[in-house]
């Protein structure tokens, strides 16, 4: 199949032998698609390799069911430092009826170079089981990873948000795209916003799914999140009757776990001690889309009353112990098989470094201790649709609005009242996005009945 795709691409572009296309500006060539893309993308697709500063970017181009002259969609991926979820994102072409370009950012495969840190991931089970005890080892492993990459001529500082935004500008030019729609999710929202600020001429519109622009402190944020869920439960008689005052129960469970953590044993025999902070991490994990999201909060609290946890806590423990240090419950939608640790640090550290939890790790990575100056940004005149989740694990809609207002003052806002992070995982909000893109992007999106009917559905 790969050979056929290459043949089609070569025929269509006039490329021969994979060399630069003489008819198009920019350092771009057709390449065989990576195996992971071929396995996951069932629609017609082809692949490009674009040379950017300090590396190459692999772009998977997915065709819509019918030829389209609309501005293509450029998908920036799910979260910074994670590989592209090709299967989950390829359907955007069908849903928007536009050619869709899935861009693997520099730092994650199949783009090059890859900033993987086996030194850090080797600490996977130990760091989760004993975060405090293994912290010096994690910091040392991060520093060692940086030294190794530097010895190979890779500068981690060249993989920051602005540099990644500039890569997208090069990709747009290399593929001779006049204007595109940028679609981001989570922390890739920082790259989308940087792209809009640095190269607004590239963009016909922006769609930001639950943009994560800051790293809020764990305790106050989880308290506020639980308060919102508690209010939703109180408003539904069955939940109120069955679970009572969730907020009071939350406080009571935190106190109890601080005194005596629950020891959760996974089916593989590993043990995770769940104390009050770990419970907060579990809440972040839930809000990030695990299971049915925040509707599972009452179940989660119930399970902390048992000696060894229940099904939900066990799943959380399994996920936590199977992922690299500070992943599940720390980073949005963190999956072991998708996370590229060095790429995550390079892109996130300007934000994370202000957090005590990340400061020494980011310093070991060579990042600045303070976020780069971004005060008083000038507004960008690009139509934008910002989609948020009422129970986002990291930021309230109001907080995101406050952060984005100076940059995107005319953005349209739609909040999904039933979910947390990554709202485009739901079909209702997808119809909002697709309908907005199909119409006049200078006008507000239509709010379908399915959106009004949505609410947390407690078990």
């Amino acid at each position, binding site marked *: *199949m790969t050979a056929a795709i290459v043949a089609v691409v070569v025929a269509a572009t006039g490329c021969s032998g994979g060399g630069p296309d003489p008819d198009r500006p920019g350092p771009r060539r057709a390449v065989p698609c990576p195996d992971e893309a071929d396995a996951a993308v069932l629609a*017609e697709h082809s692949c490009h390799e674009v040379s950017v500063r300090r590396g190459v970017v692999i772009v998977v181009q997915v065709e819509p069911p019918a030829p389209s002259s609309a501005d293509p969609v450029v998908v920036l991926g799910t979260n910074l430092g994670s590989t592209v979820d*090709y*299967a989950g994102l390829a359907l955007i072409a069908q849903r928007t009826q536009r050619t869709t370009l899935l861009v693997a950012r520099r730092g994650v495969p199949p783009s090059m170079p890859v900033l993987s840190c086996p030194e850090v991931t080797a600490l996977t089970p130990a760091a989760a089981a004993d975060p405090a005890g293994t912290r010096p080892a994690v910091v040392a492993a991060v520093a060692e990873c940086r030294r190794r990459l530097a010895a190979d001529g890779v500068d981690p500082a060249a993989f920051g948000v602005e540099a990644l935004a500039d890569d997208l500008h090069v990709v747009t030019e290399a593929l001779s795209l006049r204007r595109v729609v940028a679609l981001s999710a989570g922390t890739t929202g920082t790259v989308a916003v940087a792209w809009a600020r640095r190269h607004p001429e590239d963009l016909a519109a922006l769609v930001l799914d639950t943009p994560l622009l800051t790293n809020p402190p764990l305790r106050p944020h989880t308290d506020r999140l639980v308060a919102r869920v508690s209010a939703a439960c109180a408003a539904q008689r069955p939940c109120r009757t069955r679970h009572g005052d969730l907020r009071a129960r939350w406080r009571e469970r935190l106190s109890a776990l601080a005194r005596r953590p629950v020891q959760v044993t996974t089916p593989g025999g590993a043990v995770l001690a769940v104390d009050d902070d770990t419970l907060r991490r579990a809440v972040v994990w839930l809000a990030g889309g695990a299971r049915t999201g925040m509707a599972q909060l009452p179940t989660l609290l119930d399970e902390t009353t048992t000696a060894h946890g229940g099904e939900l806590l066990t799943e959380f423990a399994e996920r936590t112990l199977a992922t690299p240090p500070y992943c599940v419950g720390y980073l949005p939608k963190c999956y072991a098989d998708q996370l590229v640790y060095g790429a995550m640090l390079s892109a996130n550290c300007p934000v994370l470094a202000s957090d005590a939890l990340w400061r020494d790790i980011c310093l070991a990575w060579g990042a600045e201790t303070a976020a780069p100056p971004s005060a008083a940004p000038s507004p960008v005149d690009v139509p934008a649709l910002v989609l948020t989740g009422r129970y986002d694990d990291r930021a309230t809609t109001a907080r995101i609005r406050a952060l984005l207002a100076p940059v995107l003052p005319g953005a349209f806002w739609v909040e999904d009242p039933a979910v947390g992070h990554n709202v485009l995982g739901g*079909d209702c909000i997808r119809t909002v996005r697709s309908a907005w893109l199909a119409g006049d992007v200078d006008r507000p999106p239509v709010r379908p009945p399915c959106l009004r009917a949505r609410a947390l559905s407690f078990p």
Partner: protein
Amino acid sequence: MSSADRLDQLLRAELRRADDLPVASRYDAVLARSRQRTRRRRIAVGALAVVLVAVGAGIGSTRLPDGGGDSVVTERAHGLSGSWSRTVTDASVGEGAWTLTFASARRLGIDGPPSRPAGLVTDGATYADDDGLLRVDAFVNGLCTAAAVGSYRWTVTDDLLYLEVEDDRCEERRAVLAGTWVRRP
């Protein structure tokens, strides 16, 4: 013992009692059941074909299509394209009528009963057919996130489409897709 474990035990016991199949896991059990169903269907279809050919021969060769000895079994004659429906009785994925539409440009239309779980999203899917091996990404943005693409062996006999699990780790997708589908007019 969790409800899932109880279901697993029941499933294994039932399969062993009925068919004496070696069952190592729930997933293997589903695969085994699917393959056995297909074998039975093929035997039945083959037997029906033999009977019909014999009857046709008895009536006279003029009743056979041009070319004489063609079987009346029209496997793959129509291909996958078009709409197919089937009634699913598994409440966990939504009891009722499901419809598949294999459209151009590898677009797979799916419609299901209103009672289906929210994770069985029907707002987009694609398929690829490689010599009888059907690959589908249905529900990838919902309940099948962790198992993006599943593959199925397919055969068409007259107006029936048989989908047999080849490799699909998404339990809900298997429950919806694996089985017999009837061509819609």
